[in-house]
């Protein structure tokens, strides 16, 4: 069974490919959705095409599948329209799967399930990364607010932070929001604050 993964996030495609290889599938190709990717796809004659549901290139792919004569058999989304739980899980995970007509659903289902698991795992990694990035930028904001307070009020770094924290607690706000407000106010007043 030939599986093509259309994905422009190198990392996610790799995560998915690894999982499929571990499960014993070895005819796997990754195609980024750029330029004439549908033409490449046609030459590969895949049995299953897996794609990120959020990819804007889905419309392009579907159009080409509709008008293309190069694919010998029609290709449709999902393998078994009656399996609503599977379809729901795939949509939640952000997987779209196009499967050639006639491929037995018992053969495709494990592929789809694996794709769903891997996409979910990838989403978790992604959100952890995003959180780490946010934490980093939060710290930068707080540092800047601290230095404004230190400069304008002649405070030590420790006292500046304590002031930020107590204002946040008194107002029931996150420290980073208070810090952001200080930076905005300072910018508005041309740094005169």
């Amino acid at each position, binding site marked *: 069974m030939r599986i093509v993964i259309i994905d422009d996030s190198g990392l996610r495609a790799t995560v998915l490919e690894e999982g499929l290889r571990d499960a014993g599938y070895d005819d796997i190709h990754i195609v980024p959705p750029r330029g004439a990717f549908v033409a490449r796809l046609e030459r590969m004659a895949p049995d299953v095409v897996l794609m990120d549901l959020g990819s804007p290139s889905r*419309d392009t792919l579907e159009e080409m599948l509709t008008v293309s004569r190069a694919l010998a058999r029609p290709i449709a989304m999902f393998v078994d329209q009656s399996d609503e739980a599977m379809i729901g899980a795939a949509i939640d995970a952000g997987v779209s799967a196009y499967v050639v007509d006639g491929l037995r659903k018992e053969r495709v289902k494990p592929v789809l399930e694996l794709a769903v698991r891997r996409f979910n795992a990838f989403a978790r990694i992604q959100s952890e990364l995003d959180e780490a990035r946010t934490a980093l930028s939060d710290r930068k904001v707080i540092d800047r607010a601290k230095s404004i307070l230190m400069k304008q009020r002649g405070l030590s770094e420790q006292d500046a932070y304590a002031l930020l924290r107590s204002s946040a607690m008194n107002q029931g706000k996150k420290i980073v929001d208070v810090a952001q407000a200080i930076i905005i106010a300072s910018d508005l007043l041309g740094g005169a604050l």
Partner: protein
Amino acid sequence: MTTTLRIAFLPLTDAAVLAVASELGFAEEQGLSLDLVRTTSWATLRDRLVYGQVQAAHMLAPLAVAVTLGLSQQPAALAAPYKLNVNGNMLVLASDFAKALEPNVKSRLADPLGTAHDFAAAIGLWRRKPIIGVVHRFSSHAIMLRYWLASAGVDPDRDVVLRVLPPSLMVEAMLADEIDGFIAGEPWGSAAVEAGLAEAVAIGGRIWRRGVEKVLAFRENWLSDNPDSTDRLLRALAPAAAWCDDPAHHGALAHLLSDPRYVDQPAELILRALTGNIVARVGEAPIENPDFMMFAREATSFPWRSQALWIYSQLVRWKMVDHSAENATRAGTVFRPDIFRRALADTNVPMPGASMKLEGALDLPLAVGSRRGELTLGPDRFFDGRIFDPERIEEFLAGFKSQR
């Protein structure tokens, strides 16, 4: 108790009514909370609706018809009781290509028929078969583009290449020379003009003066199982649409839509479609198009069955579906004026007395029968003067034979 409804949308200016209903308290007044799900492709929006991830969607009217007819992946009976807007797209072509057209952009836009013929003459002079981006096979704009091209004898399936791309990637594709122009909902045409890549060549509202665009689509079975939520949603959208139409609010609306959660483009670009002040060539004075995009006036949101049937007639014309009485009935009943009437019965929304009308018959504004309030329909002519009688689809289709 507040009911939460999930509604999928694409980042386009004509998602305005949903954003405003959600953000300015119109939904809240009806005991609703709207969870608006930003989606990048029409295929995903369709799947979210068909497979029940959302209760409703901001959908291309022809796509709702096509899904119901089983032409776009999993067939599902969809229902559209409310139109989110009328008009609002434009065709832009690479500045080099546009050199072969009428140089005075104001005259060019004012004369779609002449411009279509100029386009036809320019095809052979271009360095390749012109590639025009469309947002979906079943988009209002793709259908309008086909209509416009065919009027000058251009076969859209033979003489040009129509390439499907999501609206938000059109500008990038022009930059990469993958397409020679595109037709899409705003603000994407304006974005390409502003980037100096393209010029406006035709405006949707000048091709069909009251062209159907996006509808609010539901699954038919959800709609019949949830009459109360449906009605409350429509009662939230009607005043939101009136708010959007009010010129005094255009600035605030453009600002709201520029938010990354919605269109994520500069407010100044979004404003052009709202006010109808369209810049056709970068750096030039805007050209006034008062009905460039409409949300509420003239009963814009009323889902005339004849409009669903006009869409159907075009799908038949381009051989996307075979004509049969059964298909015509299914297509026509996607639009649900009955639900519109039920939901808005006790409001001050003007209510047309009929559910079908001739499309393209009005040259001048016309006061029409309305169950309540005054209702004047604006001119709704097609640029080629054709009139669509929903009772005589075959006759209408036969009139196009010479164009194919």
